[in-house]
């Protein structure tokens, strides 16, 4: 594949916009997401011969991006603590989906996901966007199933709290 610049460029053009959003969900900043995207595409092009045409090509590219981000997450895990604990309160009044859709946009939500700690963020993404079960997430991240469930619940609470802040339902300036 190396050397076939036009082919690589065509693949890049086709998928880079979608994949950047995927990477942004797993990263804490756009800069970090672009790093994931760059590394992910290098892996895609180097591994193109290994693609077995056993599923959709986009799915394969997406999995490559997610794996790239998670590998980065694994390396960085020990340096990160769950810094969002102050946001966690399980007695929050739930906010409705309709309110979120009507008052917030995609970029607001993406920023909220990025602000989650790496572990909360990864568990939330794998569960909500990739559709994995807690057992699969636990195996993938080498954590317990209970931890996965707990992280997801915490992530939801934090996101709900942040959504309320943005929507002005609660005052978050204190």
């Amino acid at each position, binding site marked *: 594949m*190396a050397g076939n610049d036009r082919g690589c460029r065509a693949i890049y053009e086709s998928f880079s916009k979608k994949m950047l959003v995927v990477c942004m969900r797993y990263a804490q900043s756009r800069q970090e997401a672009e790093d994931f995207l760059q590394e992910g595409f290098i892996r895609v092009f180097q591994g193109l011969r290994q693609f077995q045409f056993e599923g959709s090509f986009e799915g394969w590219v997406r999995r490559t991006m997610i794996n790239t981000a998670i590998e980065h997450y694994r390396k960085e895990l020990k340096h990160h603590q769950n810094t969002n604990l102050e946001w966690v309160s399980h007695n929050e009044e739930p906010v409705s989906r309709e309110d979120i859709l009507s008052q917030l946009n995609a970029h607001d939500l993406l920023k909220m996901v990025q602000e989650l700690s790496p572990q909360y963020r990864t568990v939330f993404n794998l569960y909500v966007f990739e559709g994995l079960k807690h057992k699969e997430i636990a195996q993938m991240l080498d954590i317990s199933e209970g931890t996965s469930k707990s992280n997801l619940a915490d992530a939801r609470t934090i996101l709900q709290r942040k959504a309320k802040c943005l929507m002005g339902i609660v005052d978050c300036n204190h």
Partner: protein
Amino acid sequence: MKEPHNNEIDRAFYELIEGLEISPSEQVWEGVQKGLPAPKPLRFGSWLRTLGLSCILVVLLGVWKTQPNNYTSQNSTLLAFRSARISRTVPQIVETSAKTVDKSLREQALLTFRLGDKKRVWPTTTIPTSAVVYSSKQKIRASSVAFKKTRLYSLPSPPEPVEATIHDSDLIGHSAVSILSNQHPSACRSGSFSFTPDHLKTLSPPPNRYTASMPVVVALPPLHVNQPNMRWSIGIYATTYSSQHPITDIDDYLNIPHDEKQETERLLSAGIQAQYQLSSRLSIGVGFEYQHVLHENPEHKLPAAYDATGTKYFSFTSGLGGIHINEPLIGANLMQADTLQLTNTRQRISLIQIPVVVRYQILHYKCWSIDASAGGALVIPLHDEVNLRIKTFNSPEQTLDIEKLGFVQTATSYRFGLRLNYAFTPQIHLSLEPMYLGYLTRISTYYQAVRPPLAFSLNTGLRITFK
């Protein structure tokens, strides 16, 4: 991607973010380009070298295998076999079918007066059934294909009067003229030769006959069943094979066919194979295959010839498919030789093959790919049955029917191939695979020839891969 669970937060995030697209900065693509290894020049040299070496190997094997057959040794085998294995109680003998010549001519000592270099014929006896035959042969030789066309038809306008004598002038202008007769050669004497027009009608002209020494193989390529994320694939396949292989030895002096026979082989096989991908280019396959082989070897040994003066060359021609067996002999003493003999054999073999084949992808360009294969097989025969009929025309005439069983043995075979593959879709491929097949050891003690030398099989068809 699955739909998120019935959680308000999950659904809101999924619906808003999934499908969102954001353009990355240009630096990302630049970084990707820098991260990729430098483009390698297309290495035509390497695959050309591989291709060239493969061709040279196949040609060398072909040259080695196409060395002249030694009929003397085969005859010795037959004689030894005959003395040891004669059985007159065989209930049923399957005779070799005559495919191209009037059935009445089969297994008869058809006397041919061939115009040798002197172009003179002095037959004497009135021949009950006879015909003048113009035999024209055309050979088209290619690297692996040789076609032989034999035409056989009666004289369009027989000489008048009815009781006529053939003179040289009658035969001038006709190359390769033979006169066929079912007269026993011992009855021939010097003198004049006469016949009636009715005699000429007894030999109806068969249609033109084309035989090819290249076997025809129709193979169904494996239908692979791939397991996702697994490097194993399993396939089933079937092959049928048919070849007719006339063997001719040309007499250097007379420039006529000296000895001929015709081998026919038909094969039907079905098997299952498993293939393991060792790398992106290299794979190894192992299989289990059942084969049924039918091998026919009709051979006419009619070298007797006579000449009252001992100075002229005559020869006999058998009625086997228009094949001529000619042997110039001199002197009456040759009539005493026990060589006037017809041998028809038919052999059936059932066997199991366990092939192991390694494939290497030489070239891959867009939808096209070329891969080379090499391998061998362990051949385990299950059943071997030989029907043999030997008919002699000596005094008294004898017909010996012989049946033989169980002379099979484990053998090994080898194969080389070059497959051209075109992928219509990732799952559907059209492939063409010339393949050289050979046996290192014989399957049967009687199996004289397993496929013609330098025989290529041509496997072609669709390869369908199921996910």
